[in-house]
């Protein structure tokens, strides 16, 4: 039965830029410092202070816009967005309104072999707020007695990327977000760590009957702290909307919160409570008119972006799309892969090891590739040893785990753990003869045409050699002797 409903999703992402200093003052821009130690009169909003924009932040924003296929505005203006909140030192945020730095971009998003172009409405630059801790009583906002403010983060440059409502499923939204993250990562403009807050995301979702041109009731979802939360929240919300439509129940336009533990969204605030931000151009700042030559230089200097990288890995190394997507998922992975291949290892084998065992070890240890002790040399050595038959695949897995734990060179590990396979046919011959002599049953079955019987015989050879025989050499030997 065809789906009677269509889901419409848009994402609003905030990216903290990895500049050395804050957006409007020379304070250090760093995560994790003791509270209120990276502050000055400007970012604390003391009376009399004035903002002066960070040129690198503007450069990074333009590069993000270029990487996302945007048009760079010839004239862009900072506006004040006025509202009261204790984490905002001035009780206004310097942001952008109707003249953002970058507009009209797009991102190609692939899900299960299909691809969609998701429009990007705008990319603009603003300043981040401080961090609030709710304290006393339950420690959660609903039951707090008081709050504590740390302004280390206040004034950090923040880029907002707003997509068109072009996504049609939570899978597409997840893919868009993943691709956006990979793109930002390849530009080197941000740490893009959701767990540290340097990449944040709010989603807008509505559902409408197929064929309707009007959008359904739009709901905003906040508090999405991971890609997994993003996906789960959208799945939940999509289902909630579909149920409501199917049952003829009304949905209200609102902001909802994703509750990770409960696996549900909960009502936050009605959207009818519209904020009057009283935007006006920031009088302490001049407009930005990026020099066209400078913009072209930035465009020419863009690094290889994820889509291009994936395509290149597919073509140059004959990887399939899935492998290329995983290995090409970040600069680190791609660089690791290419270095291993450069040391002489066969590309598809390296890719398999990376996307299989190595990825598993990293996940379990919650480590990034860059922090692991495993080096490209480890993989290239392993692949070489497997190809030559010196190590079995089981032995190789074990060697990799050891290398992951200690970083020791593969040859050394193989020696120390006795992982060397016996592949020399001569050395195995005596054992093979013995096994044939001692196992008439499987031998008889094999001679009668049951090819699978060879496995039992191979198993005996393996047992006899304590696992160090090369099983395919053993199988060859057995076949030769039994067919003769």
């Amino acid at each position, binding site marked *: 039965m065809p789906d009677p409903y269509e889901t419409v999703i848009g994402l609003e992402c905030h990216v903290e830029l990895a500049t050395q200093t804050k957006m409007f003052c020379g304070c250090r821009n760093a995560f994790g410092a003791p509270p209120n130690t990276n502050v000055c*009169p*400007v970012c*604390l*909003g*003391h*009376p*009399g*202070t*004035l*903002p*002066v*924009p960070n040129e690198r932040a503007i450069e990074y924003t333009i590069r993000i816009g270029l990487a996302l296929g945007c048009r760079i505005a010839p004239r862009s203006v900072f506006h*004040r967005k*006025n509202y*009261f909140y*204790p984490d905002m*030192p*001035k*009780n*206004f945020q310097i942001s952008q309104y109707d003249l953002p730095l970058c507009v009209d971009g797009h991102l190609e998003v692939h899900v299960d072999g299909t691809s969609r172009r998701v429009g990007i409405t705008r990319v603009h630059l603003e300043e981040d707020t401080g961090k609030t801790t709710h304290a006393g009583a339950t420690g959660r906002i609903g039951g707090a007695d008081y*709050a504590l*403010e740390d302004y280390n983060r206040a004034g950090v440059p923040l880029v907002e990327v707003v997509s068109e409502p072009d996504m049609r499923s939570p899978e597409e939204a997840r893919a868009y977000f993943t691709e956006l993250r990979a793109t930002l990562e390849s530009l080197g403009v941000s740490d893009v760590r959701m767990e540290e807050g340097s990449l944040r995301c709010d989603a807008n979702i509505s559902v409408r009957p197929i064929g309707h041109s009007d959008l359904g009731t739009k709901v905003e979802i906040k508090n999405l702290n991971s890609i997994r939360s993003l996906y789960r929240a959208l799945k939940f919300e999509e289902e909630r909307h579909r149920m409501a439509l199917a049952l003829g129940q009304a949905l209200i336009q609102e902001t909802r919160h994703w509750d990770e533990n409960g696996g549900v969204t909960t009502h936050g605030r009605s959207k009818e409570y519209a904020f*009057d931000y*009283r*935007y*006006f151009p920031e*009088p*302490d*700042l*001049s407009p930005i008119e990026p020099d066209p030559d400078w913009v072209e230089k930035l465009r020419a200097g863009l690094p290889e972006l994820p889509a291009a990288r994936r395509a290149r890995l597919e073509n140059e190394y004959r990887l399939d799309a899935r492998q290329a997507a995983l290995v090409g998922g970040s600069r680190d992975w791609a660089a690791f892969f290419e270095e291993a291949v450069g040391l002489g290892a066969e590309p598809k084998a390296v890719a398999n090891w990376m996307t299989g065992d190595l990825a598993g070890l990293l996940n379990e240890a919650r480590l990034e590739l860059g922090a692991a002790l495993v080096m490209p040399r480890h993989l290239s050595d392993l692949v070489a040893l497997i190809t030559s038959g010196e190590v079995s695949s089981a032995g190789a897995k074990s060697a990799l785990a050891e290398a992951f734990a200690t970083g020791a060179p593969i040859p050394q590990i193989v020696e120390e753990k006795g992982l060397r396979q016996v592949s020399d046919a001569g050395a195995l011959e005596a054992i093979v003869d013995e096994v044939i002599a001692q196992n008439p049953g499987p031998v008889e079955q094999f001679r009668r045409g049951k090819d699978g019987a060879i496995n039992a015989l191979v198993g005996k050879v393996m047992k006899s050699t304590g696992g160090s025989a090369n099983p395919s050499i053993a199988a060859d030997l057995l076949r030769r002797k039994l067919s003769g």
Partner: protein
Amino acid sequence: MSELCDLTGQQLAQMLRTGEAGASEVTESVLGRIEALDTRLHAFLTVTADRARDQAAGIDARLRHGEALPAVAGIPLALKDVLVTRGITSTAGSKILEPYVPPYDCTPWARLQTAGSVLVGKTNCDEFAMGSSNENSAYGPVHNPWNLEAVPGGSSGGSAAAVASGEAVWALGTDTGGSVRQPAALCGVVGLKPTYGRISRFGLIAFASSLDHVGTLTRSVLDAATLLSAIAGHDPLDATSLPDEPEDYAQGLDRGVARLRVGVLEDWIAMEGVQPGVTDSVGAAVDRLGALGASVGAVSLPHAEYALSAYYLIAPAECSSNLARFDGVRYGLRVDGDATDVADMNFLTRGAGFGDEVKRRIMLGTYSLSAGYYDAYYGQAQKVRTLVIRDFDAAFERFDVLVAPTSPTTAFRLGERTEDPLAMYLSDIFTIPSDLSGTPAISIPCGVAPDGLPVGFQILGRLRDEATILRTAFALEQDLGLSARPPLLAELASEDA
């Protein structure tokens, strides 16, 4: 009557150089005058006597070593309390900053301090620089040294009264709608508002960002030029500060006004509400310029009649945003007695901490920026601003400077206009246009009206052309040779005798 504290900065600097007087002596003279007068004038909110003495002693030590010092070294200075000073309470004339001790210095003071200036105190002002009489101060009004029942003008009333009465040799004030020039006129001193961006605004507690200017209050035009030279210049901490190379504004002051093209804003002089005493004094001064060789003609600024209205939309809008930071969270007053949550605390703190005029302007600004009203009010006002700028540009095609009264009246009585905000706003009608355009303007005393109060003469110049208005002012000042002082000082001298 001339005690040390009554001399000009230039005269005192000369005496320090020759050794005729020491910095400590000069400072004691000023501190003594403050002690004698300030219970009557209330020009100061904070007197930094010990600090001043230390600074003066330091200067004396350097002079003894034969060091050549900058022109401002050792000269007692007062700073309007909207200019932040590290470690010294800075209130902006408001209760909401009563406990505020800034952790940093404003750039103008930082520069003067490095040059050896001696700070005697922070002066009283209208709250957050909003006012034209200094009656909006949360700490009580300032009294005009010329007549204690009269206002000194505002919002830099404290700085003007201090300079006029010898309680400081010179002072810094700020001018957003006329708040340096108008009190200068009402107190009989020289008030200079330079080009927008000429003096850094870093550390100036913001009222209206695109209109705020730091300015000087001095007893002579030469002093104004000297003080300006010491603090002007690009500041990397103020993105709106001019990038121009440093200039010595005292150079060329005496070039005279021969063949200078002077445009007289005659419709301003003839405007209803201008006091006859003002018209006469200003008219006489115009005649003197002609006699000195200037070529004098009539000029008008057609959109100036809308300038007041535009100002009262732009300034409150910007101030409503600039003053949002005063919320009891990070500094200043906090009122949280009955507060159920932080928003409540914001409401209570701001309700208790701000005076009426400030509340009015915040609300006016909030309204004119709010949804649906922006285009008709703030947006339209910024267009009128463009037209005022164009008027100035056109006038400066034909003339080098424009002249007019600074204020329609001499100093009015305390309490006279406090019930009628609109009447109060009209005090600034001649000064506001050059705040909108950012062009420089200076007020110098040009006489005393029959009511015994001083009259100010305003000279307006092209953008960045402080040099021409200063030399015009200098020429007139020298020619007029005014020596009238507030009668209070003569009384003081006879009290001492």
